[in-house]
């Protein structure tokens, strides 16, 4: 299907964007990478009046660092995210996530800001943001807001963004050498949205103050099994405070049903999703047991 008719405007700065937004009315949409927006327009399910192209706004680009924070510009493409050295060093979970996102041609154009704003419940990056305790930086004509990722995803394809508010950057606390993080998903075919996926991060205690190797501050997040990224708080508690063992993983698996309430979809029943999540949890964590054994 051809896209419905709409007008086009290109913003070169945030002030320009906000002024365009004001002029364009409520039916305007922001066009970043367009990899989801343009695909959905081809279904003619919505008919925006104007697409405001933000791809030329320089302040939304680039990855920078401060002492503790990695700042990723909203227009960073998946491909750039995956190839960025700072990201590989300070947010390796994201480097691992990128190859799971769609396909090369999509990754060359799709942006991190767009992915988070669209908030597909089966998408990888929203789950990673929650797992990494990232902060979403949003800006409107009225100023900047800093929204913790765990508060950002509010429901199916909905976020805490207000009208005429744009994601400008994502701030991720820099991972230290004690961070353990991984992402796994089960998709029917490579690049498909996952039937179920897991992104998790925790700190592995290394000083003598607590039990050596103990799991600290775990954040276990599932995707493709709810309205958005779903944190498995009870599973986190079950694996927290001690070194990972087969038994602690089993304990985390055992309480997973209290964390998740996945809906069925085209792929199958809620029971299918629970089975996949239990499996993912074990498969995501088990390599960390093995690596410790090797280290010891």
């Amino acid at each position: 299907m051809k896209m419905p008719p709409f007008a086009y405007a290109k913003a070169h700065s945030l002030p320009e964007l906000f002024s365009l937004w004001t002029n364009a009315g409520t039916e305007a949409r922001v066009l970043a990478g367009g990899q989801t927006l343009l695909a959905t327009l081809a279904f003619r399910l919505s008919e925006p009046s104007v697409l405001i192209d933000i791809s030329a706004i320089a302040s939304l680009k680039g990855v920078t660092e401060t002492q503790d924070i990695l700042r990723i510009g909203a227009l960073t493409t998946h491909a750039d995210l995956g190839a960025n050295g700072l990201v590989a060093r300070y947010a390796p979970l994201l480097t691992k996530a990128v190859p799971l996102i769609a396909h090369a041609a999509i990754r060359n154009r799709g942006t991190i800001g767009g992915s988070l704003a669209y908030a597909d419940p089966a998408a990888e990056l929203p789950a990673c943001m929650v797992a990494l305790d990232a902060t979403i930086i949003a800006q409107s004509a009225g100023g900047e807001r800093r929204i913790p990722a765990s508060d950002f995803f509010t429901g199916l394809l909905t976020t805490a963004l207000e009208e005429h508010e744009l994601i400008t950057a994502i701030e991720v606390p820099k991972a230290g050498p004690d961070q353990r993080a991984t992402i796994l998903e089960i998709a029917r075919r490579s690049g498909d949205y996952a039937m179920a996926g897991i992104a998790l991060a925790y700190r592995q205690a290394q000083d003598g103050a607590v039990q050596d190797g103990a799991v600290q501050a775990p954040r276990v997040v599932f995707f493709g099994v709810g309205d958005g990224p779903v944190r498995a708080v009870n599973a986190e508690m079950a694996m927290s405070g001690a070194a990972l063992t087969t038994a602690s993983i089993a304990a985390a698996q055992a309480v997973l049903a209290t964390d998740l309430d996945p809906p069925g979809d085209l792929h199958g029943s809620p029971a299918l999703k629970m089975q996949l999540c239990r499996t993912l949890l074990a498969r995501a964590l088990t390599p960390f047991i093995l690596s410790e054994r090797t280290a010891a």
Partner: protein
Amino acid sequence: MNELVRPSDLDRPNSYIGRSVPRPNARKLVEGRARYVDDVSLPRMVHVAFVRSPHAHATILSIDGAAARAMPGVIKVLTGENISAICDPWVAVLAHLKGMKSAPQHAIAIGKACWQGEAVAAVVATSRALAEDAVGQVWVDYATLPAVLDMETALDTATPVIHAELGDNLTFQRQHEKGDVEAAFKASHTVVEATFHTGRHTGVCLEPRSILADFNRADNQLTVHHSTQAPHMMQAVLAKHLRLNEGDVRVICGDVGGSFGIKVHVYPDEVATCAIAKLLGRPVKFIADRFESMTTDIHARDHRITGRIGVDRDGAITAIDIDDRTGIGPYSVYPRTSAIEGNQVVNLCGGPYDFAHYRAKTTVVLQNKTPTCQYRAVGHPIACAVTEGLVDLAAEAIGMDPVALRRRNLMKDGTYPRVSPAGMTFEGLSHEACLDQLMALIHYPELRAEQAALRQRGIYRGIGLASFIELTNPSPFMYGIGGARISAQDGCTVRMDPDGSVVALSGVTEQGQGTEAILAQIVAEGVGVSMSRVKVITGDTQVTPYGGGTWASRGAGIGGEAALQAALELKRNILVVAGAMLQAEPTALDITGGEVVDKATGQVRMALAELGRIVYFRGDTLPKDLARELMVTRHFITKDYPFSFTNGIQASWLEVDTDTGMVKLLKHWCVEDCGRIINPMLVDEQVRGGVVQGIGGALYEHCIYDGEGQLTTTSLADYMVPMAAEMPDIVVGHVETPTRESLLGAKGAGEAGTAGAPAAIMNAINDALRPFKTRVTAMPFTPMRILEALGKA
């Protein structure tokens, strides 16, 4: 075997038959220079988009096109009534399918919509985008009707009848019985039963259905650029229903972006496009978008089959009993009908095996879903899955190795011709040779040992086998006998031009499978010239000999033989002229490498270019009464058998993740016998592509309807086709048993891969699941279904 067809001797000059040569027409594909219908633009061309029913079943109360007519670029808004003024409806039945019935179908629905996606109005505009804009402004008032969705209850008295004039929702039923199945079961050591489902799926040609029709009132000529498999059939159909003479309809088929049977049918929206061109007297283009493709391209394979097999203690198959039911949508598809698939299930079940008692019934019912019809390997994947699934079940039940049970029951090589319990006549098959070659390729004992060792470590792999037969090269007994103007014959014209180059015009068509390449090989070898001097022209009803086109893997077997006969006759004609020029007996001369030579010594006597120069420009120098016919046409039709049959066996080696239900394909093998192989590389690629299409049906592809009859899988994100990352490498082996019906001996290779792959995958999955004493029999074998079988979802 003719002296001209000696595949074992590839050293002779111009020996192209049997050789892997690249396709001469592949270069344009890799350089972006192919010409598909959508690449053609004509002066004054306009575009049509269709208003399609959002309901599975509804009465059309009114259609208001006024708002649409006022939209930018809109030229016309047309309803079914408007079109029917110049376009007659059709009823898709065949006389030899006894008792078959279907309702009249219009190019655009009149009064009633019978599936979600059926066209109910058309908008013509200056661009496709503008036409789509206006489609949204055509206001159709519907009164929804209860939708008939479940094929199992379609015939219940409580179920509404879709077409009142038919009396019920039954379109066709056939029962075939040979021997005494019940008595044989009683006498059997073991009888096993299972119910199989093959998921409704569709072809997903990457180039969507495409047509560009132009009607020139000045000479009363309809010219149609069409992405089709059967130009002459379309010519006949369009002429008949648009009330034109066949001679006033020209169908041109350029490059086709995949067809697989999808593009051999008459689609109402395409006929409507031609009717609109006739109404407007200008070119009208219709390119289906992907959503339209998913709801209006034919679907296929929506079957439930319950089967029983009886075996003796020693593994001998005693009897097979098949009860097949299929839902075909609201109309049988024109002109091939939608009863053929069920009919094929009856014809093909048990096909590779030697057994005595067979009963099979197919019940073909109507429903409010997209119409189904023939799609690559029509009925074969279904019959093969049921047969091979039952064979594996029987082997398990009596504790016999599945290979041993097959070996025990496969029809023995060298026992042909013979007639199967289903009544199919086999001229010559090679099941045993294929099985032997397969066993050598897969290293069966080693594979079993590896499987056993891995099971100890909780890794569940399976080996699945599937013997198959494939029906090809149909005679008029397939369609013509039933009254359809579908040619089983095909022709080829071969011409030598003054420079000694050769042009071949054929009625079969190129869909990417390599038809033009094999025709060039055959003609080059037949005449005695280099392949580079042969140009092949297909796909134009005003230019090529009349023929059936491309379907049922008939291009090589029928079109190829016509080309060979024409080429050989042209050579004889050339040598007659050469004999006169050279004062030699024509029989003492030969042509090799584009030169007339002494047959005995190989000494060059004359270049064909010189012969051509004299014939065409200095004919005055030749004897007055000398025939100089450097253009020859020959036609071919099979006469001894209603169909050819090919055969083969496939094997799949895969791993089932019993915690996720995911299936990882590790390797796939196919050993097949397509008769004479003209181009081994092209045959291998037909098999591989076919296997992957079969894998699609086994693992991924499914047209899923909700309870209201809405298709939920209308995008390529939801309807999953096989992609590169998950597909295995596929080993292809060959046995060659040429048909004696033709000099060429080719039987066809287009569908073998698709026929056997789903069965092999199913059997391999069930082999992997065997330790859990569970199995899956409903395609596609999704993680959900596999985990369900394992009690985990």
